[in-house]
């Protein structure tokens, strides 16, 4: 009783802003208002599983996986270097990663729109140093670039925070027992940093899967992702039933991926980051 009372405001808050909206989505997804009344229907879900929308879903998952993978391959070494003892400008570099996040996300994505133009800054630079021009605006590559750029800090920071907490004594012990750098990394650092990696993957994969701004601006509105489809149903077409049905499928997908993640995540540290 004493423990639940302080929770009350939070419970009320969560009910109003999380539970009720979720029920509304379920309600809209399973009903239709076709005949001036409300009728239970599965039509919205039948429509979601049409091939054309399955293709959109597949494309979204594919782009999100690619972006997450790129973030991991770029982010892990960066985090490793930053966490290293030899690295003295740690805080400066962390600041450099965080500062762009102070700026509006939309503005940063808009900037890429101008940078990547045919006659934009990137191409002018490439021409200056004698390289062929790069025409990736309005393609999948531009969308992946936008996602990696926007979500990279969400990969680096959790990994860095786990890596920097690894006890130096463990590494010294590994060295004492004759492990070289590669073995130390593979058998000590990597397994210990796994919770951070899992956090990073989750924090990049989810926004990447649901984004609609990046794909609309940098993909030129033709690379419709699942987020765009949902946005279109609510903001342009006004078909809340279909929009809710896609959202529900989306929620289920995210729940599944979270379940998979937490299966791998046994350390306490990763959880503490959330």
């Amino acid at each position, binding site marked *: 009783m004493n423990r639940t009372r302080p929770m009350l405001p939070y419970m009320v808050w969560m009910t109003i802003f999380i539970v009720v909206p979720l029920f509304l989505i379920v309600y809209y997804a399973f009903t239709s208002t076709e005949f001036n009344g409300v009728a239970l229907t599965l039509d919205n879900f039948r429509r979601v599983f049409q091939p054309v929308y399955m293709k959109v879903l597949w494309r979204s998952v594919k782009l999100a996986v690619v972006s997450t993978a790129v973030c991991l391959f770029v982010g892990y070494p960066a985090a490793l270097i930053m966490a290293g003892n030899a690295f003295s400008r740690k805080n400066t570099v962390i600041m450099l990663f965080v500062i762009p996040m102070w700026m509006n996300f939309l503005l940063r994505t808009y900037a890429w729109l101008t940078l990547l133009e045919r006659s934009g800054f990137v191409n002018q630079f490439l021409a200056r140093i004698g390289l062929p021009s790069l025409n990736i605006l*309005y393609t999948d590559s531009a969308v992946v670039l936008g996602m990696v750029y926007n979500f990279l800090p969400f990969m680096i920071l959790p990994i860095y925070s786990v890596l920097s907490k690894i006890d130096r004594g463990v590494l010294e012990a590994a060295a004492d027992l004759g492990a070289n750098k590669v073995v130390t990394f593979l058998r000590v650092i990597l397994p210990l940093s796994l919770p951070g990696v899992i956090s990073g993957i989750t924090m990049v994969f989810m926004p990447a899967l649901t984004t609609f701004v990046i794909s609309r601006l940098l993909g030129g*509105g033709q690379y419709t992702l699942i987020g765009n489809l949902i946005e279109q149903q609510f903001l342009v077409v006004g078909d809340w039933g279909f929009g809710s049905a896609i959202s529900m499928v989306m929620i289920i997908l995210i729940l599944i991926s979270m379940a998979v993640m937490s299966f791998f995540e046994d350390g306490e540290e990763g959880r503490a980051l959330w």
Partner: protein
Amino acid sequence: MLGGLLLLTLILSGCSSNKETLYVYNWGDYMDESIIAEFEKETGIKVVYDTFATNEDMYVKIKSGGSSYDLIFPSDYMITRMRDEGMLEKINLANVPNFKYIDDRFKGQDYDPNNEYSIPYMWGTVGILYNTTMVDDPVDSWDILWNPKYRKQILMLDSQRDAIGVALIKLGYSLNSTDPKQISEAGELLKQQKPLVLAYALDEIKDKMVSGEAALALVWSGDAIYAMQSNPDLDYAIPKEGTNLWFDGMAIPKGAKNKAAAEKFIDFLCRTEIAFRNADYTGYATPHVEARKLLDPEIRNNKAAYPDDEDLVNVEVFVSLGEVLKEYDRVWTEVKAH
């Protein structure tokens, strides 16, 4: 002196705590925004100015409730639709004396026969904006937007009635078609076009055309004029198969909290000098007789911006489609998802 005193009291009263607020919802890039500050200064009414990108965006937002705009800028077919659904408030023309400056050509159109619900704001056509240095074929038909030669050099309007409308005209149907078979055919045509399209966009189209990013674009005439002023290589054509003639109006949504201020702002926008500045800034054609006379002759007499009645032979105005609209929604969603 007395006038000055009056103005002063107006300004002072405007500063008092119970400041009147007017919520305006307009298209992006569709007003010289310095005008807003002037209106605030003159009347003491605070203006909150938001923008939307398409009629459908605006409609869904108003329809779903929760927003409380006093003044909106829907197009012809949307005015009819909102009127029919009881979403618009009647405008008291006695409060809008400057309505007299609106050209009779634009009064009493079919979408709002007695101008009970809307006052014309801008008008124009839909056509093709193209870069003369990148296109060597004659631009006189919608077919050019399906020409594989211009693969990835075509920009399309990300607006369902406009995009599907063009496909319908190309197929020889009415752009107000209510036949689901014809609408589906138009959808198929747009899916065929998709590999050639560089991007589906709205306000960005003019900037991308100015910077030479694409060769051809489906645009609203005003954006074309704006872009042509910034890049002399650009030109605008209305295809021979015909096109859409459109009118954007100013209207007051039902339940507006400050109808009086909305009418005051409409009247303000219909002042000759203000209407001129808006037309000059946006590039769109004003229905205001006196304001048009103030414009640079190059624009005033430009047939792209101000086509005469005889230039507008094959044109159709969008009409509200009722239930068939669902068919348009479905086809457009599929085209975008394709």
